[in-house]
């Protein structure tokens, strides 16, 4: 068992390592020790960051400079678009899209000779001949990293590095100097609201559970991020798993629970593996188990794998899933804080919510409450995706505007296209338009506009996105994910989807629009859980803000964005076609014919509208009409 003094010793021993992972301003040649940070998030791992690490180790060993270099696999840096990402400290040189063939030259030039390897330096850090500190680039400078504070800094698989960055100090402080009431009071005063989508006050939830006079209580961490287009919880588990473990133990102390469960998606293998490893290390150090820090407080955590059911994001459904049943919600009350897992008082907190707890304890409720807006305190992590230059993970203070996030941090829309909409809140949220770009991001503003914060997916859409098709996409998702327990959700979403299918296939009528609106409101009002209550939001918000697109589908039989297959066809402009035959060769249905050096023609009856000809034509001769 480790005591507080042991943690201090570990911190002293390991601190130096972390200190070297800051930009020192030192000039290249005089540096004697370098930290090479390689992103090990899922995005970068998918683009072979593990092979990059192996190649780096091989090169470093081959040149005999092992004592002058450390190679660290970290959590997500955020700029997934540019992966695999490598940062070299203390100079803080940011390399993007690094390939294995770059490694020998990178090691030779930078790690041996102290001169940055020019070829892969992140473009945005160049300013003339000078290299800008990457933290000063548009992507990073407006971010405030609290939940993500260790992602990209520590090796998530080494507990000592977490301890060196003040890890488990909040737990120690809570157990040795604070009463359960004081902990709850601190969390309440911080104003932290649940980041899973509901936005309920975390401290209040804890207080409800703490008030129950029962011998057995539970803490559950919801890591079943089912939102399509959201990966913040996964990135936290991959990059800073101990922060979640520490917070679960703090929550356990606050409400009087000695058992925790983490319900994590089986589809996230790296997150599961890193979290399990972190659990083993915490147990080995006695930071989980009996008599933590010699205070008599006991707490354990068990991992339960989810099995792919979006509805398990709903608290009562998640509880039934852990109990071994189908994940179907039950009416509230009783709330889980009163009667939850196996009938005992239970709190369920989302990963990102928990990742804030340690920092709140260490820095104080007032520090946290000073960030954000009056009713939405702190920061929010967003997964930026879709038609935006910098796709990736960002953490911003509440109250920032959509425009700042999309155009400054996100870098705007690629390919000179026009911004059309931003979707927040996933299948439960809605689409907002250009006129909302200057609205602030906080729980209440987004809800009042017909969207919601949700868990934090933020998908940007440009002029090539059909909003009716987007609504159909989300409805298809919620219809598929409805647990089927209550009729408005089970049948209502199916009927709503059928009407959307009708519109996108060009057979919709104006009455359909009215029916869709009516049915949407009925589903919202009559469904048992949040899945059904929010399922029609994408339809309602697109009907409200993009009604003219629905009308174009219905009255003009046109899809303005050129997406809905039934309403478009492909044609070759004879004036632009050079007769290169590329389209005919690539066409999978042999629908294009012609003679070399003469304009080709598409047989519309044989065309399957796959768009391959449009994609391959080098002369922009294929048009969507």
């Amino acid at each position, binding site marked *: 068992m480790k005591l507080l003094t042991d943690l201090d010793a570990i911190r002293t021993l390991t601190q130096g390592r972390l200190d070297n992972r800051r930009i020192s301003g030192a000039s290249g040649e005089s540096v004697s020790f370098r930290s090479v940070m390689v992103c090990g998030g*899922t*995005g970068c791992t*998918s*683009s072979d960051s593990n092979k990059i690490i192996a190649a780096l180790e091989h090169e470093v060993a081959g040149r005999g400079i092992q004592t002058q270099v450390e190679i660290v696999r970290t959590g997500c840096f955020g*700029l*997934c*678009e*540019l*992966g695999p990402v490598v940062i070299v400290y203390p100079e803080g040189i940011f390399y993007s899209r690094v390939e294995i063939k770059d490694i020998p030259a990178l090691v030779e030039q930078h790690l041996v000779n102290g001169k940055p390897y020019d070829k892969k330096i992140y473009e945005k850090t160049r300013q003339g001949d000078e290299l800008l500190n990457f933290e000063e680039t548009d992507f990073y400078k407006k971010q405030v990293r609290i939940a993500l504070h260790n992602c990209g800094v520590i090796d998530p698989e080494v507990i000592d590095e977490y301890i060196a960055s003040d890890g488990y100090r909040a737990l120690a402080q809570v157990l040795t100097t604070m009463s359960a009431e004081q902990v709850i009071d601190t969390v309440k005063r911080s104003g932290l609201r649940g980041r899973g989508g509901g936005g309920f006050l975390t401290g209040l939830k804890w207080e409800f559970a703490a008030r129950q006079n029962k011998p057995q209580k539970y803490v559950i961490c919801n890591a079943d*991020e*089912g*939102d*399509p*287009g*959201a*990966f913040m919880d*996964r990135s936290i588990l991959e990059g800073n798993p101990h922060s979640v473990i520490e917070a679960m133990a703090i929550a356990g102390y606050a409400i009087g629970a000695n058992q925790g469960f983490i319900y994590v998606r*089986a*589809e*996230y293998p790296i997150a599961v593996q890193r979290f399990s490893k972190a659990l083993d290390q915490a147990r080995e150090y006695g930071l989980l188990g009996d008599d933590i820090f010699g205070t008599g407080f006991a707490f354990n955590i*068990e991992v*339960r*794998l*989810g*099995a*792919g*059911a*979006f509805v398990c994001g709903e608290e009562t459904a998640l509880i039934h*899933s*852990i*109990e*071994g*049943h*189908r*994940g179907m919600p039950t009416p509230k009350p009783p709330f889980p804080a009163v009667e939850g897992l*196996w009938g005992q008082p239970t709190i369920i907190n989302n990963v990102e919510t928990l990742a804030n707890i340690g920092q709140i304890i260490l820095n104080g409720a007032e520090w946290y409450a000073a960030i954000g807006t009056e009713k939405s305190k702190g920061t929010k992590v967003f997964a930026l*995706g*879709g*038609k935006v230059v910098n*796709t*990736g993970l960002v953490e911003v203070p509440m109250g920032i505007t959509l425009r700042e996030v999309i155009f400054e941090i996100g870098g705007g829309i690629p390919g000179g296209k026009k911004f059309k909409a931003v*979707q927040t809140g*996933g299948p439960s949220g809605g689409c907002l338009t250009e006129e909302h770009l200057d609205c602030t991001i906080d729980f209440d503003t987004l809800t009042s506009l017909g969207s919601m914060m949700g868990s934090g*997916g933020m*998908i940007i*859409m440009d002029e090539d*996105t059909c909003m009716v098709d*987007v609504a159909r*996409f*989300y409805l298809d*998702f919620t219809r598929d994910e409805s*647990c089927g327990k209550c009729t408005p959700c089970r049948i209502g979403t199916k009927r709503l989807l059928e009407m959307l299918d009708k519109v996108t296939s060009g057979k919709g009528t104006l009455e359909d629009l009215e029916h869709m609106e009516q049915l949407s409101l009925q589903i919202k009002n009559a469904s048992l859980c949040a899945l059904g209550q929010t399922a029609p939001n994408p339809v309602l918000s697109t009907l409200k803000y993009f009604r003219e697109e629905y009308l174009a589908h219905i009255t003009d039989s046109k899809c303005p964005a050129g997406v809905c297959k039934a309403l478009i066809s492909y044609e070759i402009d004879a004036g632009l076609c050079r007769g290169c035959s590329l389209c005919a060769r*690539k066409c*999978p249905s042999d629908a294009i014919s012609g003679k070399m050096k003469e304009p080709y023609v598409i047989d519309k009856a044989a065309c*399957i509208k*796959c*768009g*391959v000809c449009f*994609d*391959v034509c080098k002369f922009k001769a294929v048009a969507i009409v």
Partner: protein
Amino acid sequence: MEQHQPCSNSTIAEADRKLEQIKLAIDQFKQMKGALIPVLHEVQDVYGFLPEPVLQVVSAELDLPMSEIYGVASFYHFFSLTPKGEHVIHVCMGTACYIKGAQGILDRLSTELKVPVQGTTEDDKFTLEATRCLGACGLAPVLTIGEKVHGRLTPNAVPKMLKEYN
């Protein structure tokens, strides 16, 4: 008459070994409350899907009726009651991928492999599946074949990608 020969000794041993592994896992999970889902995960890990005879063993060992096991297994997307092809292709249909043209990739795969979505090719080589967010939105549109991730795809890249597995 060779084709009528019963399973060779090695495949029987293999089947026994797998079942033994499941029984060990069940013994380990039995004490735990809510053991069914962890056990089903184990079965799918070992067999690649949930074979009925194995579920019957689970039913007997955990003392749960088959109806309940079937109810749970069919509820969750992650569990499959039918065997899969040698390579399972998961096309990400998360929002970021969808906006960037994942439907086109899925359609092209379906045409190339001549199977519908959720189908398995005649030679049992590929199973084509659409999946919810893989969480690699920076590489959209993205798909996985087995463990390997293919990102930043276009429909035209599909035939070449499939060739890697032939």
